[in-house]
């Protein structure tokens, strides 16, 4: 069994405008030492997915209405996080599953020194004595590349730069030696040279500790650099999933293909027109019937408007390549030919 197995997760928000199906039946796995990249645009449900895994969805208006989230420990013992008590969940958060967010300033308390916030984690989760905890925290800050950690640990968050704050968040996330790290747009607020440092830090810690990582981002470049496997989300569902090379070289969902063709690359000479995806993502409160992508797909067939497509496995080697699309024979080549 993998480290985390998610089956049929559904998280809905009950609003005045109706039920918003932010996450609507997604399933995936993450192994130890593996990075699962989840790509999607705003409203795709990628961030609600990460909050759901920690059971941090604000209720009301949100609620996890169905699904299993099975976490396995080193001894092979499994527990379904959907079923455990809130007390148990509190122990799991930070200890076995840790999370880093886009903006570290909103998750660090501005009134407390970094040392207070870090030491507390070890006192609560590991029952460590203060002195011992402080020592471990200094070591962790050093491991994430904070210079002069023994003195910087007593800084307040505002005294640190954006990149340093994100390093502190990563140190905090890794303090209890978690099995799974969820990183939700961890570098989106950072400059690109600092982004490269933070991504390499996550990679380095993953390799050193055998962490499983769920990396959520809108940036296909970050996915290409970091992920082993990729899940592409659209309107609350995973529309395509597979090994990172397959998803980039041989995508089979028109949305994945559209994403690939709509982004300019720094290694491409100045070309002609980009190929945008027409239209815009649907409102989750008013999803079109059938496959929610059909209004943006020129080659949709009648069944696309009628029902949501079943998962279809594309034959090939390695980890399975699964796509949810009624239209067979969709590929990068076919798409290019149709366009020209």
């Amino acid at each position, binding site marked *: 069994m993998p480290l985390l197995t998610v089956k049929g997760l559904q998280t809905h928000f009950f609003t005045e405008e109706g039920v918003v199906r932010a996450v609507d039946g997604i399933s995936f796995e993450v192994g130890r030492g593996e990075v699962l990249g989840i790509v999607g645009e705003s409203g795709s449900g990628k961030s609600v997915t990460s909050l759901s895994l920690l059971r941090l969805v604000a209720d009301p208006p949100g609620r996890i209405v169905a699904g299993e989230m099975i976490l396995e420990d080193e001894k092979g013992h499994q527990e379904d996080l959907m079923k455990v008590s809130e007390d148990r969940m509190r122990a799991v958060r930070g200890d076995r599953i840790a999370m880093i967010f886009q903006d570290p300033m909103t998750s660090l308390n501005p009134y407390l020194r970094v040392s207070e916030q870090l030491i507390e984690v070890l006192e609560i989760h590991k029952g460590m004595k203060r002195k011992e905890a402080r020592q471990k925290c200094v070591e962790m800050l050093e491991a994430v590349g904070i210079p002069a950690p023994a003195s910087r640990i007593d800084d307040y968050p505002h005294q640190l730069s954006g*990149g340093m704050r994100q390093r502190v968040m990563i140190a905090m996330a890794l303090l209890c030696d978690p099995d799974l790290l969820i990183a939700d747009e961890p570098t989106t607020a950072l400059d690109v040279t600092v982004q490269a440092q933070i991504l390499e830090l996550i990679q380095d810690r993953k390799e050193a500790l055998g962490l499983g990582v769920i990396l959520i981002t809108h940036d296909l470049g970050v996915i290409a650099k970091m992920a082993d496997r990729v899940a592409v989300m659209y309107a609350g569902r995973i529309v395509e999933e597979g090994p990172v*090379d397959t998803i980039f070289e041989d995508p089979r969902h028109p949305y994945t293909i559209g994403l690939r063709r709509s982004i*300019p690359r720094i290694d491409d000479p*100045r070309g002609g027109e980009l190929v*945008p995806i027409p239209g815009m993502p649907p409102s989750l409160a008013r999803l079109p019937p059938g496959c929610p992508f059909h209004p943006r797909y020129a080659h949709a067939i009648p069944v696309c408007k009628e029902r949501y497509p079943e998962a279809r496995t594309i034959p090939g080697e390695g980890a399975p390549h699964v796509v949810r699309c009624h239209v067979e024979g969709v590929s990068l080549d076919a798409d290019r030919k149709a366009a020209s």
Partner: protein
Amino acid sequence: MTDKAAPGEATPLLSVRDLAVHFPVRRGLLQRQVGSVKAVDGVSFDVAKGSTLGLVGESGCGKSTTGRALLRLVEPTSGSARLDGIELFTLGSGELRKARRQMQMIFQDPYASLNPRMTILDTLSEPLFLHGLVKGREEALSQVSALMEKVGLGPAYLRRYPHEFSGGQRQRIGIARALALSPKLVIADEPVSALDVSIQAQIVNLLGSLQRDLGLTYVFIAHDLAVVRHLSQEIAVMYLGRIVERAPTQALFEQPQHPYTQALLSAIPIPDPKAERARKRLPLVGEVPSPLDPPAGCHFHTRCPQVMDRCRKEAPLLLERSPGHWAACHLEAVKRD
């Protein structure tokens, strides 16, 4: 710095020389000035008519302040900027208002720059009335409709309010407003960075086709080098208030001369896993220092992997290394494999 225009070009539409924008830092009870932030510190460039200059760099490099200073949305401290022969920095307020017809700005967040209580028709016709370009409501309506069509929005949207639009549509309105007065120069400050990936391409294409159709000249300010590459003929890279390298787009990407440009390019992940694994990143330590107290000499020396003694003392001049390719670095022409 130099006074030479880019070689082989006709008179440029926009010509900026030694632009500096310093913000005073005040402290204490008497608000005495204790120093200044040199947000822009001696920037020069030309933009040929109908072409695009990309202005790139990380946060705090001064790229947005440069754009704002050109429109005098912030007052420049010194330097000169000529638009079609007119010196912008000495204009009185009446003349400035007139000159602003020729130069317009597109902002990152169109929602913040649209009045939520005005319909799109009112928002777009206001500048036409202010500048006396239309006589009555009817003429305004027909001009605004034509404008909306140019940016790909149907006349059905005219009587709607900003909140009824998606982010991509709002940016189309932001573009329509910038074009309402038929400007010669458009300064676009991060126009696509708030948009979803699938919508970005629509707006990038729109900016490209408008430029071709209307002969517009752009200064395109962005941190996303891939988008900048797609739209620009020439690119200037800024670091802590100064241009460190300026070159035709292809030359900048293929033979970057300045170590900062090289590091910046190598830090951008390419959306291609195999190419990404094959790449060697040039490690750049630390972060951009505070512009309040920039390092002496070359501002980049604290992070430069090839720093020499001289770099700590003496700021390098922006010199032409090959035709049209300028770099400010003490290293001899940088080789790259």
